[in-house]
């Protein structure tokens, strides 16, 4: 169903006016994004808290992916590809 990028791959994302990911401008996959879902993931770790804003997006109208914005690092990552 999906391929997991472990560790997630850092990408650069250009946001749309609504604040959603609009385009990947730097990374292994490039192109416009069509977001289809969004959710937050937070876990409390005694050492390293994890807070991520996940987006399910369609890249270039053909490839369904999951990217997330690491809220602590302020960095976007590509994590999953549906193929």
């Amino acid at each position, binding site marked *: *169903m999906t391929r997991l990028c472990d560790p997630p791959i850092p990408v650069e994302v250009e946001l749309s006016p609504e604040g959603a990911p609009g385009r990947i401008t730097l990374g292994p996959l490039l192109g416009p994004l069509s977001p*289809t*879902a969004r959710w937050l993931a937070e876990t409390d770790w005694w050492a390293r808290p994890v807070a991520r804003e996940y987006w399910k997006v369609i890249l270039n109208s053909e490839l*369904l992916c999951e990217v997330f914005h690491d809220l602590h690092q302020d960095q976007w990552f590509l994590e999953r590809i549906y193929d």
Partner: protein
Amino acid sequence: MQEELTRAIDVIHLRFGEQALARVDALPAVQSWPTGVEAIDRLTGIQGLPKGRIAVLQGRATCGKSSLGLALLAQATRDFAQAIAIDPGQSFDPWALLEFEPELSALTVVRPPGAEATGEAATALARAGAGFLLLSLPGRIAAAAEPWLPVLAAAAERSEAVVLAVVEESPRALAHASSLSFSCERTGWRFERGELIGVQARVTCVKNKVGMPGASTELEINYPLGAALQPEQVLAEVKQWNQEERESAVV
């Protein structure tokens, strides 16, 4: 002339056995492994994937090929003592397999470091008799597979292992080595209440050395969103196409 032909046939039988020269309808049947996905079993013509042969699942971008591969892998973990996922791209996610209720104790994931090691691993495991091998081949690995594909095919034939390669595009060597090839093509996205819940895909049997090629089927592949799905909800057949129907529909 007839005498010379008879003598030539006798020499072939002496050297290679009587099965070396036989009528087509006298050749031994290929054994099949039922995949648990009825749509796929129907497409092959032999009610399953052929044992001892290489099958290929190919398709670009999001088309459901990995979902299909995982469904077959999950069934293999239930049917065989050892099911192996060969993952040179290091992207295999067992979480995605859970939807198909696998027997995880029968699964081993092999992560070879490169094209040559991928061939070495696949061949060694086929030779050792692993029941099912799923090869998820990134493009660069598939492109460099030519040296080891014939060896893998021979090892699989001897042990009757089921080998399934999942690729974006099948390079010539893999196309040649395979006995069965499926092409996956996304025919649409599936949305429900504004949310993407899955894809619709057409799977066509484009090459078939064990039966008739050309048959197609439409599948719905649904992605779990929080609530767990039953395996039959993840992969559902929508419509079965045969070659004539597909051509007339296109027209």
